């Protein structure tokens, strides 16, 4: 099966790990994408509790088998507050 080429976009505390905030990777599921991000050096505990949006749609982090298609964007965010 061909791997989908997707974009992982890191935001919030997840983005501060010393690497690029946006990467293009090969992944078929959300789970795979998260694994790759972890391998890149993104904090694994933050990844576990990341808020996930695939193409602007919220996807529960536990749905690791959520299928990704070519060209999808996976945004990973951490909670924030402000004014």
């Amino acid at each position, binding site marked *: 099966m061909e791997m989908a080429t997707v974009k992982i976009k890191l935001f*919030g505390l997840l983005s*501060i790990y010393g690497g690029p*905030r946006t990467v293009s990777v090969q992944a078929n599921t959300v789970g795979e994408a998260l694994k790759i991000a972890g391998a890149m050096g993104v904090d694994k505990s933050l990844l576990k509790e990341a*808020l996930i*949006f695939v193409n602007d749609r919220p996807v529960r*982090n536990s749905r690791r088998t959520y299928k990704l298609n070519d060209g999808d964007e996976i945004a990973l965010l951490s*909670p*924030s507050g402000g004014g």
Partner: protein
Amino acid sequence: MLFKVYCRAFQFIMKYAAYVLPWRKPVLLEGEGCLKELPGRIEKKGIKSILLVTDSTIMSLGLADTLISNLIDAGIDTAVYDKTVPNPTIINIEEALTMYHENECKGIIAFGGGSPMDCAKGVGARVARPTKSIRQMKGLLKVIFRLPPLYAVATTAGTGSEATVAAVVVDSDTQEKYALMDPALIPHEAVLDPLLTVGLPPIVTATTGMDALTHAIEAYIGNSNTNQTRAMAKETVKLVFENLYKAFKNGKNITARANMQRAAYYGGIAFTRAYVGNVHAIAHALGGKLGIAHGLANAVVLPYVLDDYGAAVYKPLAELADLLEIPGSTAEKKAKALISEISNLNTRMGIPETLEGISEEDIPSLSDHAYKEANPTYPVPVIFEREDFASVYYRLMGKSGFPGYTGKIANINLTTSKVSKFTLQKDDLKNYVGGKGLAAKIIYSTLDSKVEAFSEENPIVITTSPLNGAHAPSSSRFNISTISPLTGLLVSSNCGGDFGLSLRRAGYDALIISGVSSKPKYIKINDKGIRLYDASSMWGKSTSEAQEMMGLGGKLVIGQAGENLVRYACVASAERVSGRGGVGAVFGYKNLKGIVADSKSTIATISDDSKALNIKWISHLRNHPLTGKQLPKLGTSALVSMMQYNGLLATKNYSSGQYKDFESISGETLLENHLVKNSGCVSCPIRCGRVVKLGGAEVKGPELETLGLLGSNLCNNNMDSIIKLNYLCDEYGIDTISFGGSVGFAMELNEKRLWNNGLNFGDSSSLEDLLKLVATREGIGNDIADGVKEMAEKYGGREFAMHVKGMELAAYDPRAAQGMGLGYATANRGGCHLNGGYTVVLEGLGLRVNGSTTIGKAALTVFFQDLMEAASAAGSCLFTTYAVLPAALVKNPNKFFTRAACFLLPYMGGLLHFLHNHAGLLGLNLPHMLPHPYAVKLATRRNMNIGQFIRAGERIYNIERLVNIRQGLTDGDTLPDRLKSPLRNKPGQKLVALDKMLKKYYRIRGWDAHGKPTKRRLKKLGLEQ
């Protein structure tokens, strides 16, 4: 509350039980030289051996010599005990008792002032009850049996002890001063010979005279009077006012001396039946613990306590004023005039307003003693809590008011250039805490009808808070309130700059600026006082230049925008601003360029408890994901991306909640490409501020609101331009939110051809020039400077005029967060996210409560609005309230317990509603969860718990609303059509279901259908009009 009921019940019973007690008046011997007759009277009783109780001063003055030789001549053996100390001790009594028995005495002469008399009574009591110790006879009716013949010879005027049931003694072991009270202790005969008082030094004359006055007044204003006690009290008051000063000035004035003795005697008769009150309780504790003379203590304390009683004593004090022919048109005026006369009398006789020897550590135990003495026994007009006693002790130290406050508010009139003192009403600090709360109360009390923002009558009220300088983290914030030129309503504008601390150091809790200056001025406040200076050289300068020119100290300044009355001009303090509502324009209208406060003093010391709480609180903030990680690392700018994905990011004048180019203006981009470091307000460990590069310089970086309103809202994806605009807005002194909102509206007016102004969404190139035009009110800038509401009146486009009550909205699009929509609609100062309760932090940002549902949102909004209101009034940054959201929930959005909690929270609306309206149930402190009320308690040494804190917040919210209603607000809790009307929106676009939530909101708040607080709710909050 229950305790007060108990006290009143006790006093009621005592009052009526007293009718059956064996009251008597001593047989009176009075007149010049009447002392000569005493030995004869004693001899007639068959007494052959008598104990004379006195003190060493009297013996050394030889006052008793004639009497003693006359007694001996009459064949009466006289044992003299002269070791009584000023506050007689049990040791004195026991020594004198030994002498009594050794000499087989059959009677006692008390010769002197109150101390020998009380000592003598103590001896008599011990003779009457040989098996009981003095300690055991403490309190009421413990003596009962008849004393040996007791003759009281008064050498002062005085305690009235010659007529009273009380003997006040000091237990040297416990340092307690307490009273034995029993009609058996009333002396059998009293001798009032004015010749004995002729030699009294003026200060003793003064203080003992004021003691007599205190007896009379405390008796008269108490709840246990009889016709006789009232008559006696009145007689005393009259005699004191007519004779005390005369006796003070000329000790040899026999008539004045005799009248003062009579006054003391009548005063004794009055108070021994009608009791004394809180003044005596306070004075006794000072006497027992610190040895401060009784008369002096009473004299100094009396005016404070009468003042504190307030309306409860207007009537009786007015009656006394009438007796003295003190004029006044109302009971209140007469009462206050009388208190003033009492203070004057003190001053004329050299009695001070403070007392030496009290230190702060003493106050808790002093207050405790006073509280226990007064309650339940004394039928006082107002029952004092320990903190009420503490307040008096603090003032006696020379520290005005409570800790946590300076007790001074200055009123600066720019029209007359005069500075005067502003006095709060009693309990204002307790009920409104400080900051925006106190400001709202001041404005409510000062204005009695509608006032225009640009008018002489509009006051600027600048208030600090009790946590300022109390070493509570992130709690140095202060507030500027006034009637807003943008909304015509009350605006409270909060600021994290250092002006508040400087103002406190200079000795002021608050400033009230009234009137209008004819020329540009600035105000300087330092240890020399408050003065106005010419500001013409500063006029036209930017905020940073003006601050520079004002020299050392904490400053407030306006820029050109304020000078030109831009309706959303702000005030700068260091690099922070009092941003919203156009407070800067009111400064400009008053020709006030700014204020500088400079003082070398420090803010009052804090207790060890405060230090411990401070450490824990800082640690909590540092460990919380929002305040310890996101805000320091990314600042509020982190929200751009979060809002984008939640559909909350106001885009293109709120036509949408998402911006396709959001990444160009995100917090992550700011961090990567522009950030130099973070920064923070004074005393803040969160440090959410940004420092960024601009050209070659380092300047303050943009907050979330600015990124939204000048970025996505204008379809501006140019971060450099936003950074520049942010900098310029600060320099001109303009609110970035209202500016962005106004420009966005102008762009849509242009797009829809309602106003040809040349401004286009997505075109950032002209924005810098536009900002200048706005700040100087030139060209199209003149219209934009008036804000969205005014522009809509002029050009139309009301359906997309994004303001509430005239205030432009913040960057959150509330269609994806229903609670935030309700918050915008109901916030007292207009479309504000923070004053609105900031429920959006629950609805997707910090937690994930369903933003689309209206369930529970009304309760959450009310709860958080009031909590934040109180936190702001206490002086804390609202970000400290985010740390109230449990870290475990915030950090773990995906865990089951978090998802469950977020799901359930809306359904807890009923519980929140209940707790909010029964805040008494939250009468405890949980410093780990909500540190603020506990911190306020430690800083002010006054009771404050979670329930009282929230109640204070509710009270403040309501009084702000009352001001607004007076300013003409009716049915003002609305939202722009774009946010709630389907007609102006894209098909399928979410809307805010405001009406539904508003009904619930009003019900929880106890307001009517028009948003007006009901009488019932106002009564509950103590706000009856």
